């Protein structure tokens, strides 16, 4: 039997199909989010499943858009799904830091991988990937090159952690004052991880796993590690942990 998990995030939709017996990933894919997310999700699933589409026994949806996907048999929050996915990939994980396109969260796990408690950003995009997109756009730097740019910084700029809109204004001011783009990028990275460290508080426990699309931006794992004061590990395919967790929970919740 095969099972599916779909993570309808604010910026991208991620899908994973797994074998129910071995829990190995059979297929996975990512597509940009859009207005008709149910159609986008369906197309993504059809694309990665191919001829196996009809054999998928159960689908669990998670993420911001989880309630808008009729293809799903049930929905589970991204908190639970990320914890499940990370525990599968890194069974000893005790803290999960997920920085996605428009939200971020810190999960503390018990020894058995279940969620102990969590914190979410509930106000502004300042601690999320959206901040990186804005700065990349403003500075004319490709998202993939931000890490390299930050690596060349000589003195990271001090950027507001309170609000992305204010921070963008700050960036314009810094550029006008002659600050180097490299220093600004490094400052933005520090701003994001600083906000995450505040959100996580004093409760961050080792081992710390970093997931979400922002984990793939070079320089961010190092910056995060420095901010939280713990070593940080990025799991393979960090964007997919939510969808993987959803697929695993599809197995658990079926009469498999």
């Amino acid at each position: 039997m095969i099972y599916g998990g779909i993570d309808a995030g604010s910026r991208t939709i991620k899908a994973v199909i797994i074998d129910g017996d071995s829990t190995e990933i059979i297929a996975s894919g990512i597509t940009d989010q859009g207005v008709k997310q149910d159609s986008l999700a369906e197309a993504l699933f059809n694309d990665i499943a191919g001829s196996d589409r009809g054999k998928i026994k159960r689908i669990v949806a998670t993420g911001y858009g989880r309630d808008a996907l009729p293809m799903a048999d049930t929905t589970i929050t991204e908190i639970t799904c990320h914890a499940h996915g990370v525990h599968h990939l890194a069974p000893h994980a005790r803290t999960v830091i997920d920085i996605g396109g428009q939200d971020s969260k810190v999960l503390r796990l018990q020894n058995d991988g279940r969620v102990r408690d969590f914190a979410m950003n509930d106000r502004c995009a300042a601690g999320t990937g959206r901040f990186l997109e804005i700065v990349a756009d403003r500075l004319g730097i490709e998202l993939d090159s931000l890490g390299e740019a930050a690596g060349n910084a000589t003195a990271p700029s001090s950027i507001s952690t309170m609000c992305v809109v204010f921070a963008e204004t700050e960036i314009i001011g810094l550029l006008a004052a002659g600050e180097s783009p490299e220093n600004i990028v490094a400052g933005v990275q520090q701003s994001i991880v600083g906000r995450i460290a505040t959100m996580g508080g004093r409760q961050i426990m080792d081992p710390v796993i970093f997931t979400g699309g922002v984990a793939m931006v070079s320089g961010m794992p190092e910056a995060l590690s420095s901010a939280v004061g713990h070593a940080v590990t990025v799991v393979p395919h960090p964007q997919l942990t939510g969808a993987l967790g959803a697929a695993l929970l599809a197995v658990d919740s079926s009469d498999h």
Partner: protein
Amino acid sequence: MPPKQIALEEWDRLYDQLKATGLSEPSYGGKISRHLTDGDLRLTKLRFDNSIAALNLWNFLLTEEERLANARAEGKKLVGTMKDLGTVPVLAYSLPDLVAFYPDGAWWIPCVMELSAGLLGIADSLGIDESFCPVRAMLGAFVTEAHFPLPDLLTCSVGATCDDFSAIAQRLNGLGNPILWWEIPHRRKPAENERAVVLPGGMTAPGIQVDFVESELERIKKALESLAGQPLSDDMLRDGIARANAIRQRLSELRSLVFKAPVCPLPALELLIAEMLALHYCSDRDASLQVISDLLIETRARVDQGEGFLDAEAARIFWVNPVADLRVMNLVEDCGARICGTEHLFTHALDEIPTDVPPMRALAQMALADPMVGTAADRADRICSDITEFGAEALVLSRIPGASHCALEGGAIADIVAARLDLPVIEIEVAPLNDAYWPSLGTGLRALVETIRQRRGK
């Protein structure tokens, strides 16, 4: 009628049916939807308990402005009591023809009227912006005079109270509204050689602090006597305390029934409204007692019959701090949780006032038991004790934007409860209107319910 949560339109239909079968109503009765004409737009987005007791609760709450206007027209004296939460009204209602109310209660108007009254905008224009607690709506209400008549006497406790509230009240004073200030000190533990007094709730304070608060309350008493034109005897105050305690006893029984019943017998929203009555009586102490008594009878009947909302598997959540957006109480239930314990920053107003000491002394002891004048650790102690008593499985700390107590105490309470009881604890923020954050709030609460269910399975 089996318990059910229904929308406003359904209540209208039910009301017509009840009227056709001879519904007997109090003077403030009627369809809940009639309050839409007052601008209470949020009512269309809430779900209500379908009992007659709940109908009376809502109508009682939503007619307070009329009661205050009528009291003024009848020549009664209005006392605006600010910040003390539960103390000065006991004094005021012990005198004839005094009606006390909390202008602070205006903090819910921006939610209930969906900002249409413009109260927050007025506060902004007076320099009290969104960095302050939503109680700043009170300033707008004083300016417009559209929600309550200007009181004949305004009192406000200061000292160990919210910094932001003190600032708001000082701004109000600066606008030309005279305020009789009285001081409440930060409650501390008695030193070794000091005389200790046990307060309601079990905490202790130095006798010298109780003496001081009693002397402050004596000043308030004199002002009230002057307003009423007659002295307040100990017997009158004892009677006032007995009546306050009658409400507190019923409320305590109601809370215990709701929090401990196998199936939740009363929605979180109606319980929140009922708990607030312990503070302010909605400007009619006797009617307040009747409303709570009826709610208690209805709830007890449901518990006896095993009826209620959700199912016995609903996640049991302890809730700290009142929400500025009432819809969140409905959301909790949508997410599969029920409220099993609350600490809304006024537990001292839910505990009975001592009757074994002179009445002014008793009020002073009660005032010093206020959670807001002690430490976060004191609050956490009470929360831990109540969580254990009510069998809650998780804690939600609901922050009020701008409210200094929420910002400063949430983390400390979270750490203590998590360490002592090993429960999941989350913090959320609830502004007067949360439409933009609704999906995020829902995800947080649903995830907490999932976490609780997973912990049950371990």
